[in-house]
Each structure stands twice: as C-alpha cells, then as structure tokens.
C-alpha cells in the first residue's frame, strides 16, 4: 500500500528537508520503518534504543491517534496519511 508520511518541521532537518515521504507499507509501523530506512538519521528521534516510539512523539493515521487503534500494528490502505505529531508543552514553574 502506498501511504504518505507527514514529517513535522523539527524533524525535516533529518529528512533531507522534506515535508513528507511516500512509503510502501501494510501497517503504520511498517510505514515508519520505511521512512527511517529512507532517512536513517530520523530513527533516533522517533524511536528509543529498544525500538519503542518516543513518549513525546504521537502518530496519527489520517485523523486518528494510533494509540486508540492497533498502535503500530494498525493496518493502512492506499492513499492513507500517517502524521508524526510532536507533543508540545511547557510553563513557567520549574518543578
């Protein structure tokens, strides 16, 4: 299945400045794997050393959070869009 993966701005420097990439995959996990095969530098920004998605990285299939589907095993179909979405937070208190 041909799917499009959207790359957020802070990660584009590790993806030849591209805002998206086309990959062939059966699942969301395979799509992310295909992306990090194309752009090896992305890998450590998406996954921990033991291969889990980093906690400040969210992944959406079209408009759905994959955490509420089958996570990385969620199947994809032709034309689907996988979005890598950074978590954004902060605040003035230090602790």
């Amino acid at each position, binding site marked *: 299945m041909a799917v499009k993966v959207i790359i957020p701005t802070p990660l584009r420097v590790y993806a030849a400045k591209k805002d998206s990439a086309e990959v062939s995959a059966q699942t969301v996990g395979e799509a992310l794997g295909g992306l990090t095969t194309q752009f090896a530098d992305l890998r450590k920004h998406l996954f921990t050393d033991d291969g889990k998605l980093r906690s400040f990285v969210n992944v959406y299939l079209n408009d759905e959070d994959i955490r509420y589907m089958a996570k990385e095993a969620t199947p994809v179909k032709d034309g689907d869009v996988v979005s890598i979405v950074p978590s954004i937070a*902060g*605040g003035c208190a*230090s602790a």
Partner: protein
Amino acid sequence: MVDEFQLNIGYELAERIGNHGAETFPHECCGALLGRDSAFEENAGGASSREVLELFPLVNRRDDSPRNRFAVTAEDVLEAEKAARKHGLDVIGWYHSHPDHPARPSQFDREHAWPWYSYIIVSVLSGKPADMTSWRLNDDRQDYTPERIEIRNRAAV
C-alpha cells in the same frame, strides 16, 4: 552552526501575542507560530532567515495547573499544521506566556521542548504584557540559545 538566530515578526503579530497573554492572565496562553524558514526553500544556502507570518492561538489544556503550565493536544498540533499548510506556511514554533514570571525558559520548558522550533515567551506582569523573548533548544537538548526578535513595522502578509 549558526552563531546567532533571528526571528522576524510584524509589529501587529507581536502585539497579538502579548494581548493573548493579557486575556488569559493569570493563566498561561499558548499558540503556534506559522511562517517560513528559508532553509526549507529550494536552493537554500548560507544563513537561514525565519519569519512569523501568522498566529494560530490555542487553548491551554492544562486545566489542573494553567497558571504555570501549558499543554496542547496532539489534535491541536495537527490543526496548527493544517492551518499552516492552507496558508502555504509551516509551523516554525510556539508561543506561550509566563504570568508574573520573567520571559525566560524554565527547566520544565526545556524538558518539553524540541530543537529547531522557535519558542517565544512573553512575560505578563499584573495582567500587562512585558518582555518578549525567543529561544531555540540546542540539538543536545541541554540548553537554549536565545534568538533575537526583530519586530518589523508592517502588517502581516
């Protein structure tokens, strides 16, 4: 490595960030900075320039601690990115306010920030916008580099 970062923003947009902080005072406000970074343009070379061209104000989702924390949902981030694409822009950073605190990033800010983005912080003192600063997290995530804000005296495009 770039020695000095600079973020260009129109006067009106800078004023809107301060006003957003005043509206939500004593709670923190937050929103996305939509704009352009020349590094992403074709044939980019040399030092990049970055400009805020639109804002995407968001609701602070930290109902438990809105005076000293902010968070947005992943759906908010997706919406901000869609809004940016609609205008032919990118999400180049985020802004938030520090009510009755200086416009300096906290340790909590650093732990939750991403390299590359511009992070504007506006200090809001007794309900009035005060200092505005901008920061970029270093690639090693250990510290920030201050980014000079160049406020331009013209309306946003």
